[in-house]
């Protein structure tokens, strides 16, 4: 992160044709990211986008920065290498729900627990786009797709629950229909020092059209999206008439504020070192068809992995002096042949 620069959106665009289907939600995410970069004045040379394989994973080709379009599921591993080698860079991971949670689930959870300073944008369209429409680990049970003509059997992951269970220091959710909210959320992720996991609900209009319509359509948003705000009581609805409370089992429940009174509502605190509240909030909706929290679930500070790596090198060099190769080679007992 260097001095801010003054660039326009065009400066962040490459000369490559954007090869997503017309109408794909990925376009609006790309726009949000580029506009955010303009706002933050990020120098293109210090940004690295790493992706896996999938429609989402084509993202790096459209950003005039450094980038690696790697292989399916491995982006967090590759990005870890970039970040640890070069803590001076901003490293972004762009991934799909299949890329990150199916084949790549393990690298994702390990990057998160280590708190590698990666900004992970997971475009969740609840489908495999690039391979033409099979169910994904976030598809709802019973989904009929090419590979599940009688309905899928798998219980989906809740990406927020999973990443909280994996010790992620920053977890948030946003959606492709609200540019301002995307920019706010990704800005927060960028400013967070440590791994930041952002789930972006994204419409795949070809293979899973309307998956999030029930909650993201302009008309329903007010009643269906619960925009979490730090230090504020959790409430929503066109007239803020609904609120969220905890029950005796530590579970979140939706109530009418009028029924219980504002003081009973949970006051959201992203910064709790215990992720239990964030987790409970993640269980409020079992899918994007009921009131769903968006925004930042958790944001806690702990040392980043790459800083710790660098620190160990610095301390070792400080205490032992810079390594002397000749001395190293002759360690452990030598003798001379005349």
């Amino acid at each position, binding site marked *: 992160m260097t001095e801010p620069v003054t660039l326009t959106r065009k400066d962040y665009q490459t000369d490559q044709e954007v090869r997503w289907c017309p109408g794909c939600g990925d376009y609006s995410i790309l726009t949000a990211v580029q506009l955010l970069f303009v706002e933050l004045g990020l120098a293109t040379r210090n940004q690295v986008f790493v992706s896996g394989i999938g429609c989402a994973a084509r993202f790096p*080709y459209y950003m005039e920065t450094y980038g690696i379009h790697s*292989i399916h599921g491995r982006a967090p591993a590759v990005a870890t290498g970039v970040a640890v080698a070069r803590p001076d860079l901003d490293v972004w991971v762009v991934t799909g729900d299949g890329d990150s949670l199916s084949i790549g689930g393990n690298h994702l959870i390990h990057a998160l627990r280590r708190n590698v300073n990666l900004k992970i944008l997971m475009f969740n369209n609840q489908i495999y786009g690039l391979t033409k429409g099979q169910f994904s680990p976030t598809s709802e049970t019973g989904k009929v797709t090419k590979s599940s003509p009688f309905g899928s059997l798998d219980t989906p992951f809740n990406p927020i629950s999973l990443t909280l269970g994996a010790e992620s220091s920053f977890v948030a959710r946003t959606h492709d229909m609200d540019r301002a909210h995307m920019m706010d959320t990704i800005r927060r992720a960028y400013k967070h020092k440590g791994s930041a996991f952002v789930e972006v609900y994204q419409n795949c209009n070809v293979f899973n059209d309307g998956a999030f319509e029930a909650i993201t359509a302009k008309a329903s948003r007010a009643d269906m999206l619960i925009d979490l705000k730090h230090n504020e009581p959790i409430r929503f609805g066109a007239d803020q008439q609904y609120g969220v409370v905890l029950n005796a089992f530590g579970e979140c429940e939706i109530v009418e504020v009028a029924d219980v009174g504002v003081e009973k509502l949970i006051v959201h605190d992203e910064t709790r070192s215990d992720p239990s509240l964030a987790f409970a909030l993640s269980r409020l909706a079992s899918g994007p068809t009921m009131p769903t929290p968006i925004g930042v679930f958790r944001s806690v500070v702990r040392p980043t992995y790459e800083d710790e790596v660098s620190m*160990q090198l610095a301390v070792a060099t400080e205490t032992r002096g810079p390594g002397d190769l000749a001395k190293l080679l002759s360690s452990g007992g030598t003798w001379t042949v005349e």
Partner: protein
Amino acid sequence: MTIDEKLKPEAIEEVVIRFAGDSGDGMQLTGNRFTDASAIFGNDLATLPDFPAEIRAPAGTIAGVSSFQVQISSYETLTPGDRPGVLVAMNPAALKANVGELIPGGTLIVNEDTFEERNLEKAGYVGNPLDGDALAAYRVIRIPMTSMTLEATKESGVKPRDAQRAKNLFALGLVSWMYTRPVEPTVDWIKKKFAGQEKVLAANVAAFRAGFNFGETAELFDHPYAIAPARLEPGLYRNISGNVATAYGLVAAAQCAKLPLFYASYPITPASDILHELSSLKNFGVRTIQAEDEIAAVGAVVGAAFAGQLAVTATSGPGIDLMAETLGLAVSTELPMLIIDVQRGGPSTGLPTKTEQSDLMLVMYGRHGEAPMPIVAAKSPSHCFEATIEAARIALKYRTPVFLLTDGFLANGAEPWLLPDVAALPDISVPFATEPNHGDEFWPFLRDPETLARPWAIPGTEGLEHRIGGLEKQDGSGNINYEPENHALMTKLRADKIAGIAKDIPLVEIDDPDAADLLVLSWGSTWGVAQQAVRQARGRGLSVAHAHLVHVNPFPSNLGEVVARYPRCLIPEMNMGQLSRLVRAEYLVDAQTISKVQGIPFRSAEIEDAIVAILEGREIS
């Protein structure tokens, strides 16, 4: 015979000693210490550790036997020896597992105390082999090592459990006396090792001295032996194992390349020690990551290579399997990196602590599509250092992932190493791209016409922002491109780049004093034993040539001419004939394999026999 006469050592040229005992008996420690003492004394030597896959397989059983063989000599030692001349057996299982290898007439030293019913039974003996004449072919020396150790350590005040654990030091003391190893360096070493545990220290010193003194005073031996320091090239030496030499080679390669070293790895036998070694070298600026698996390790390596570091991973066969897909990406993105395969016995989990050379075809071909990678193979423990730097040189210069092959034998085996002059190590640094190379654009796949390497432009460089990936790229611009002719061209360019490295590596050298008809061609860790076998064959008056490959892909440019020159070609390999297949396919010569797939290195006699057989026109099996 007076004590004085007894003290006069008989000079011999070499000896092969094997220490064998239970996994808990400390045989590796004993063997290593004896080796170090011999090395510092100036002998040439080579070692062969052998231990079970379990941490501590059941005490007293064959499965739990751990052994360490060392050959020390007053001339150039090429192998740890075919068969021991001296076997130290700490229990019946160790005897049973090893006595078959002892040469007839060899010395067998047993810890008599352990030859009681339970242990005999566990080892599968009916009756005590020390009674009767089953061991009549050997010079059997029965010593109650446990009780003598307990006796000797009484004064140390140590607990009986710790006291009896010192019996390996008793054995070490005895053998040190037998081969006139100096006492004080080992006593110092014991002191260092057990610093802070006063009683244990005292017990171990006492046991060691007791063993030494026992040799001197007991009537069991006529006299000790002396093995003069070897007439090696002058210079400063140390004893080094292959894994340590590899780790040091990496640190050196990074310095030679003027790059930070980045090492990501997932623990696996027998490669883990490289990680352990490098993890402690943080003041050399070495970044080490213990990844969640091998795929993550090599993924991080790809990232670090893109970011501009000397990026390296090491593993063994199962890990190489897992890295295949990512290595294809590395080939496609043409990033420099080093992949070290410390080969072990396969297939699958196989024989995880044993040695084998059976991953050659895997590293050559184990990626989908046409994805060529250079292969360098180390030939001895200390050569791992040099081979590592050479592999790094190729990786950096040609912007390609490179395989370095070692194996369990090299990794854990040790030998004296003439320390290189650090200042004289090669400069293998390569420049990063700093500016546009195509008008005011940067083309990441615009190649150096000479090496065909593409520019290495690292993040942070103004104006060289670019994206790379695994989809086929347009020649030059690197943009995604699916056109038929471009794919054919890029495939050919990638192949030509690797093939072209042949121009940049030494020709294969032939050791052929008298125009032989038969060429023995070795690669990797069979170097020493192949050379030894050739010497032995020549000693029989046979004429045999020997050549050895350090570069396995591409082959040295004169190899075709060399193999064509000899009517017969014999390739000893610890696999079913993998190099043979490569040589046959490339040069259409009827290379024959002598194959050993037993988890242990060749004996020189095995190769010698094959040489004789071929020269006599017999079939080799």
